[in-house]
């Protein structure tokens, strides 16, 4: 277990190697990245078996008072600053923390990243910048792995920022396309607004606790050393960071655009390395959120619910395959947040994993379709099962799983969430959650039927199945998307079930609530049946809603006008403020630069003097005003 730090470090080593040696290596060094992450995946199993064999008596391990589960913490001093004798010193560590939550994330990230990188060999074949692609990929995976291994907030924040940079580079990978560079910038800026909250939250915790250590912060929150106001504020600030990264309302606008990156990148971002970081953060900092009766969790639940409902409705009407998947991701992230907000810690992580496998699969499937048809609009597709059967089948498995068809992984995890919500939140939440569940089944069914079933569209005859480098990873993911739910069960004597491994304070049994199970099954099957009537057998016109309530359709199709409102706000508010400040500065400072007067000088020498002294007067005036202001301030503080 003490070697867990190798998992991210291997990827970090691979990245510069690819950049430097790549051009001389076969495949531009892409195999280095794959080797690094594959080794990481192998080490993950070693760490897992080490952890399962560990007990609170093992060295470095203890039962955490904050989460109730076994935690192993390995610290390595990074640097120490400030006097050791003072409590205000800073010791920063490269600490790796291993607990069930970390292990779950490690498994997900290494596996999905490995699958995506293998798949990319086929998808990105022949790209002139393949080496750069794999280098950033390795950085991306390494950063996310560091993020989940970090035992202190500083390291977490550093990894958090690195994830942001890598996603910026990958989303904008095809920077020849204007849309791609805009999307990259948008993702970077929007998530960084959340990061401001995160960093302020971390600083607040530091100034209260005097350490970046997570366990010390959790301790202070749970034992009452930190007051209720501070704890709740810190939780909300951390949530702000999580909302930015996890594309929660109102920061969700960046994720749908982020699909401008290569499709395997979308798979990685949506399933494993970026958006789940926010959910992970809330889960990791759960002791802070849950302290003092969990007031902050109510906010988490509301944010999750609003996000889930809003984006599910947009997914219903999108016609771009990748956008449907993107809104679906936002909606499912909302469900995970809702689950956390309803104290459903186990359910949220379970859904995070089940959704991760299914969503990676769906994106890779979509990539396979686009690879062969070069289309993204689902209206131009249809009947593709006839030409690309493997893609069609694995995509359908993913869609059925996320749609919540019984016995597949998504069914079990969604049920756990609904269970938690029905137990701990008021009926409005559970009713809305059911609506979301129905919608998510419907849009998945719609995508699946329209793209793969029915008549083969004209002009798609040339489409062909993708090479095995692409289909093999999809098939492996499909197995997990279908069968991962089995891990939920409790096999007495052999395996304690997912809830027996990942839990908050109390191990959870596998629970199955009959009415929730039946109702969600009925809803999921009903949604698939309804979608088949609409899109497969065309008994019902899908446009019926558009005819009955045109205004609603317009609002939803325009994504509730979030982009427009933000654009307006940026143009009218931010740029106005910046312009005003600049104008003020310019009215006094000659912002045209020295150029203007200098040109004049060449023609009329003496103008220089007038011009310059004119400005200098105003500079001096500003200084005098500033002096007076400062003196008044000083006077106010001194008497």
């Amino acid at each position: 277990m003490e070697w867990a730090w190798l998992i991210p470090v291997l990827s970090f080593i691979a990245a510069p190697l690819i950049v430097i040696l790549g051009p001389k290596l076969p495949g531009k060094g892409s195999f280095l990245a794959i080797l690094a992450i594959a080794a990481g995946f192998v080490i993950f199993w070693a760490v897992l078996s080490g952890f399962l064999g560990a007990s609170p008596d093992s060295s470095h391990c203890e039962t955490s008072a904050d989460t109730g589960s076994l935690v192993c913490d390995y610290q390595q001093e990074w640097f120490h600053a400030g006097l050791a004798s003072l409590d205000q010193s800073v010791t920063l560590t490269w600490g790796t923390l291993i607990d069930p939550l970390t292990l779950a994330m490690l498994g997900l990230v290494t596996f999905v990243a490995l699958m995506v990188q293998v798949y990319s060999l086929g998808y990105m074949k022949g790209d002139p910048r393949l080496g750069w692609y794999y280098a950033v990929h390795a950085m991306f995976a390494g950063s996310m792995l560091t993020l989940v291994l970090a035992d202190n907030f500083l390291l977490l924040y550093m990894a958090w920022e690195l994830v942001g940079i890598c996603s910026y580079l990958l989303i904008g990978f095809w920077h020849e396309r204007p849309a791609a560079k805009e999307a990259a910038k948008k993702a970077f800026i929007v998530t960084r607004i959340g990061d401001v909250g995160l960093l302020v939250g971390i600083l607040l915790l530091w100034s209260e606790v005097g350490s970046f250590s997570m366990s010390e912060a959790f301790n202070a929150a749970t034992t009452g050393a930190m007051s209720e106001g501070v704890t709740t504020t810190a939780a909300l600030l951390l949530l702000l960071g999580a909302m930015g990264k996890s594309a929660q309302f109102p920061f969700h606008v960046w994720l749908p655009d982020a699909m401008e990156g290569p499709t395997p990148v979308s798979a990685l971002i949506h399933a494993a390395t970026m958006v789940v970081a926010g959910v992970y953060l809330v889960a990791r900092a759960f002791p802070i959120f849950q302290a003092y009766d969990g007031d902050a969790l109510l906010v988490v639940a509301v944010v999750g619910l609003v996000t889930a409902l809003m984006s599910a409705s947009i997914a219903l009407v999108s016609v771009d395959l990748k956008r449907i998947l993107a809104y679906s991701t936002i909606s499912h992230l909302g469900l995970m947040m809702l689950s956390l907000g309803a104290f459903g810690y186990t359910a949220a992580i379970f859904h995070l994993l089940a959704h991760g496998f299914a969503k990676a699969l769906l994106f890779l499937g979509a990539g396979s379709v686009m690879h062969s048809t070069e289309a993204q609009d689902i209206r131009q597709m249809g009947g593709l099962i006839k030409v690309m059967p493997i893609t069609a089948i694995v995509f359908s498995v993913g869609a059925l799983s996320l749609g919540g068809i019984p016995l597949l992984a998504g069914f079990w995890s969604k049920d756990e969430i609904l269970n938690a919500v029905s137990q701990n939140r008021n009926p409005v939440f559970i009713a809305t959650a059911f609506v979301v569940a129905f919608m998510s089944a419907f849009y998945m069914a719609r995508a699946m039927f329209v793209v793969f079933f029915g008549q083969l569209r004209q002009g798609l005859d040339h489409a062909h199945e993708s090479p095995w480098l692409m289909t093999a990873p999809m098939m492996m993911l499909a197995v997990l998307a279908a069968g991962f739910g089995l891990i939920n069960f409790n096999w007495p004597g052999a395996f304690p079930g997912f809830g027996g491994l990942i839990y908050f304070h109390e191990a959870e049994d596998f629970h199955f609530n009959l009415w929730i199970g039946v109702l969600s099954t009925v809803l999921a099957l009903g949604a698939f049946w309804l979608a088949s009537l609409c899109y497969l057998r065309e008994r019902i016109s899908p446009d019926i809603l558009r005819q009955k309530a045109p205004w609603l359709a317009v609002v939803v199709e325009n994504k509730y006008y979030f982009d427009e409102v933000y654009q307006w706000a940026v143009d009218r508010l931010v740029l106005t403020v910046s312009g005003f400040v600049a104008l003020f500065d310019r009215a006094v400072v000659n912002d045209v630069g020295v150029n203007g007067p200098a040109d004049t000088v060449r023609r009329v020498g003496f103008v220089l003097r007038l011009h310059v002294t004119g400005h200098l007067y105003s500079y001096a005036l500003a200084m005098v005003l500033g002096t007076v202001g400062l003196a008044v301030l000083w006077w106010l503080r001194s008497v």
Partner: protein
Amino acid sequence: MPELTQNIGLLSPEFALAGLALGILAIDLFLPDGKKQVTPWLSAAGLAGIIALSLYMLWGRQETLYGGLLAVDAFSLFFKVFFLGLGILIIFTSMEYVDRRLDNPGEFYGLLLLSILGMNVMAQSRELLTAYIALELLSFCLYVMAAYAKGEPKSNEAGLKYILIGAFSSAILLYGVSMIYSSVGVTRFADISLALGSAGDVSPALWAGLALLVVGLGFKVSAVPFHMWAPDVYEGAPLPVTAYLAIGSKAAAFALILRLVAEGFVPAEDLWSQWQIIFAVLAAVTMLVGNLVALAQTNLKRLMAYSSIGHVGFLLAGIAALAPSSVLASNGVMLYLVGYSITNLLVFAAIIAFFNLTGREEIVDLAGLADRQPFLAACIAIGFFSLGGLPIFAGFAIKFYLFVAVATGGFLWLAGLAIFASLISIYYYLKVIRQMYIEPVPEYVAAGSEREDGIVYEPEQNLSPSFLMLGVLAISMLAVVLAGVYPAPLLDLIEAASQAILPGA
């Protein structure tokens, strides 16, 4: 007073530096025109020698000279070595530029050395008038250097503006010093803190004097609203001088402010706790205005000017958070100064190398630089990422440390504001990176033909920065990454320096 000249040998590095500067000026007179390139090498070698001399003589010493006017301690030594090292790198960065575009190289380097002398004394002085004289030595050298491109009206104008506004601010500073002296009768920092600590209430002359003093120093570091001169002077001055202004003079002024506040204000705990908010307000205004106005800039040098104003805001926030019992804020400021300086050196060296190749300095001229000069583009991008505070670069470590110190000092709101201002800064740094990496290489550059405004481009394919520039770039890039990943050894030195000025901590 016999003790006045006791230990005067400890000033040997300063004597050596003054001798070196005068020597360079003298040698330059006798060198024939073709042999003048030897002066920068001599200057750099001399500086390296003085670094060795300082380390040998002064390591671990803790003494005062001239009856308490100058301090020989870890703080002075830290900044002395820092300034001398910076001087060497600045000389190497300037060589090609000076060689091609400026006359009288010997005098240029002589002035540079004299200004470093001024900076060294600033970091050592523990008395207002000594500090003032050192500051003037630095400033006068800079006035001349800003106007060094005699043929260029822009440079002349920059020098003229700089000297007029500089004289104005010096007058304010001196006025402040005289008012302080008239009300407490002392000028040594330590005596001022004693006077402040025992004063029942502060007389109007004293607070007015202190305010004037801060204004004068605010001008030197270009804090808002005393920043007006900076963009004009940065734009007009020859590029290496701009770099020197942004890096060296700022660091020296902060060394002075740090010692003044730590030794003169902070020990008077009651008053300082009331006055912290003044510096905090100054910091807040400076970081906001600097970063907001930077958004609107199109000239690279003006962008760097406003960006550096923004960074001054962060540094002032660290000054506001100084506390008698903790070295955290003082560590933070010094670490920030070092990280900021090496990062800026990287950016400016790359800009100078670009200018040497093309003679251009607008942001639009960087279009497609990633394809034209990949290494220069990477240097600027890394520098900007670091200035924006992104991890694995120095900028992350220094910002994190400083903001932690500010938050711990009781200014969480200011730390939050600083993080927000950093967010804004990312936006304009990205604008430049976008130009380099996303915009295509303009036709007229690729073809070496004429642009609309009549400027003719030479084909750049065969152009490459000189080995010297590449060396400076590589060293500073390494330093930027090293300081971001493993600042521990640096922090040990800074720690010792902090303890020298904050003995109570």
